[in-house]
């Protein structure tokens, strides 16, 4: 039987990631927009509009984790310890915002204020943590014998912070788009204004992150014909990750660079689950990957297409994975 199971599972997980980003993206986005609304009544309406679906949306996240565990255990075992802090922070933030849906309805005045804050802060922090996970994943993870062997703070860098900011803008745009679609009148007008703010923010951050990705991975830049960008990995993207800090550069210099990284068309989606897209390439890295331009898929808020077009070259020239 010639079923290419890694490819099939990569596709399943890519779909899970895409669904998660689009679906939980809008309900997290609604939470991000929570502090900017005009009245408590509007907040109730915003929350009520996502209350029936958030649980189903979050199931895609469980599918991403469970599917990665089942289909690509090495990636799962390598990435999650490397991204320990942001993953745990994401889970805690998702807990606080998840329980807020029911608790807010049951609480009295003070409790309601607490759960309103928990929903807004939880949504924002979960998004930031997902962005840091994604940024840390695109940067790469230091491995030794298939297990994480880097510094626990490797995921934190200007690049991952930039990605996190981009994700906040993207989810806010999705949330605004959802509210434009599902509400009317004053709240809808407000959501329209939010969308108008979010669109340029997403566009700018998209451009900046796309450019920064070229700096982080000169191999990708080379594939796009930016020969000038090509530098040796040790001086190039590492230096860019921590431009001002010589000590950090020194810290990373001594490390054996058994780095496994990749940037695949799906890397702009949610990271642990997008890794399978690159994971099979560990075995196919001998083949010459073709840069592919994804046609923008116009989701109503457009944020997800930004995600997809940013890192388009599936290069793994510089690294063939965990050796």
């Amino acid at each position, binding site marked *: 039987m010639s079923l290419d199971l890694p490819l099939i599972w990569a596709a399943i997980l890519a779909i899970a990631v895409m669904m998660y980003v689009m679906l939980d993206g809008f309900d997290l986005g609604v939470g991000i927009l929570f502090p900017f609304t005009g009245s408590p009544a509007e907040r109730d309406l915003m929350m009520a509009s996502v209350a029936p679906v958030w649980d189903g949306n979050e199931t895609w996240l469980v599918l991403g984790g*469970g599917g990665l565990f089942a289909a690509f255990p090495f990636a799962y075992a390598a990435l999650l310890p490397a991204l*320990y802090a942001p993953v745990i922070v994401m889970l805690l933030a998702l807990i606080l915002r998840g329980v807020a849906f029911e608790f807010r309805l049951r609480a009295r005045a003070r409790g309601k204020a607490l759960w309103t804050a928990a929903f807004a802060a939880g949504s924002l922090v979960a998004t930031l943590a997902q962005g840091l996970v994604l940024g840390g994943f695109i940067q790469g993870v230091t491995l030794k014998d298939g297990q994480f062997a880097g510094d626990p703070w490797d995921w934190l860098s200007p690049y991952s912070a930039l990605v996190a900011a981009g994700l906040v803008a993207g989810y806010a745009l999705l949330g605004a788009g959802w509210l434009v679609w599902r509400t009317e009148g004053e709240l809808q007008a407000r959501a329209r204004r939010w969308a108008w703010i979010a669109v340029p923010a997403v566009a700018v951050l998209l451009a900046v992150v796309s450019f920064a990705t070229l700096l982080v991975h000169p191999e990708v830049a080379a594939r796009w014909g930016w020969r000038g960008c090509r530098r040796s990995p040790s001086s190039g993207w590492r230096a860019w990750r921590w431009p001002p800090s010589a000590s950090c550069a020194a810290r990373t210099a001594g490390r054996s660079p058994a780095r496994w990284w990749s940037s695949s068309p799906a890397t702009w989606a949610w990271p642990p689950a997008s890794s399978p897209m690159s994971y099979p390439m560990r075995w196919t890295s001998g083949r010459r990957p073709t840069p592919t331009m994804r046609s923008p898929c116009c989701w109503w808020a457009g944020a997800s297409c930004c995600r997809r077009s940013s890192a388009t070259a599936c290069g793994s020239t510089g690294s063939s994975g965990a050796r």
Partner: protein
Amino acid sequence: MHLDALMLSRLQFAFTIAFHIIFPSFTIGLASFLAVLEGLWLATRNEAFKLLYLFWIKIFAISFGMGVVTGVVMSYEIGTNWSVYSAAAAPVIGPLLAFEVLTAFFLEASFLGVMLFGWRRVGPGLHVTATVLVAIGTLVSAFWIVSANSWMQAPSGYVRLANGMLRAVDWGQVIFSPTFPVRFVHMVLAAFLTTSLVVGAASAWRLLKAPDEEESRLAMKMAIGMFAIVAPLQVLAGDMSGKQVLQFQPAKLAAIEAFWETRPGQAFHIVAWPDRAAASNRWEVSIPKLGSLITAGDAAAQVKGLKAFAPEDRPPVALVFWAFRLMVGLGLAMIGLGLWGGLLCWRGGLARARWFLRAAVAMGPAGFVAVISGWVVAEVGRQPYVIYGLLRTADAVSPVRAADVSASLIAFLAVYALIFSAGVVYILRLIAEGPLAGAAEAASITPRPPGYALAAAPDDPGERR
């Protein structure tokens, strides 16, 4: 106890999973209870069933939400804290968890929306179907999780590759590993017991205040019917499970019973103070021969003691011993409560039997305590292995630092303490109000059922209020 990354990871996993199991063990039973209530309402058109349904669905919504968010943690924590285990065991365990997501979670998540938000929007046929499907989803979820855990307790149907990876060769044997069927029944019965005790306690609380409340009387009788039947069955299931522990995990059984020496006709220790360092019990209160009779079914049978295993292969004894006794003691109390309640139902005067009602209130949390104790027996008793006989817990941990794990453990403790206390307060508040508080809500102008989590929303999300 040395607090290294391993011990902290164990503490964190134990805490988060013990906290998580509280909610499934309640919602598995409650979903089935809701399906029965709605079915009975549609069949008899007795308004009391409808009121009870709309009352308990509010509590279900809170508990289910807490179960979802604490469950998401589990699917990532396996990777963050147990990456060596993940890499080795995922080819066998991973698909079971993936099947759970695909078969159970999506079923639940899809129909939960209809169940909680569709009372006025879909017909009764579709609504009851949604409730039944959510109930089935919770049971399917339990199926896969207990299957995965049972495989780790008594692995079968796998091969071990040269690089230490495990690979399934017979999925039938992996899914239906030898201890799975009995453990699944044991867990589902535990969930039904837990739920019936909570329903009983809530109804008893109301009856103490308003003995004439028809809905609470009805719910009390349903709860008694459930635990009076299920509690004795649970003893049988537990006994069968114990026999399998003797066969597949003799060290765990020796720890459960605090047997140190291997000998025929083991005594049953009612209480004891096991001392691991001295490899004996400091003191014990025992019944001769009964230990062998209970564990092996024969008073003369030879049963292995802990000294038959190397010291590094012995599980912690005192914790397993006492957790088991707590579970069994509560189980016996549940049987007693069932007999008492059954007698009162038969003789009449249930709603005014104040001492029984007080006892039923006191037993409300017993199911949760028994479930957690039972899992402590299962999980601590299989130490030092995470996959029995194959992978030691100490070898399974992620390359993370103790500092990071202690920070995350403290964060989990703080967040869970907050959401647990809030959740308990809101549920108890609802229970104190009782099912009739919802009736007033239902009669008011709002077109929503009182169980509606979306009371503030317009009927159509596009509609302006």
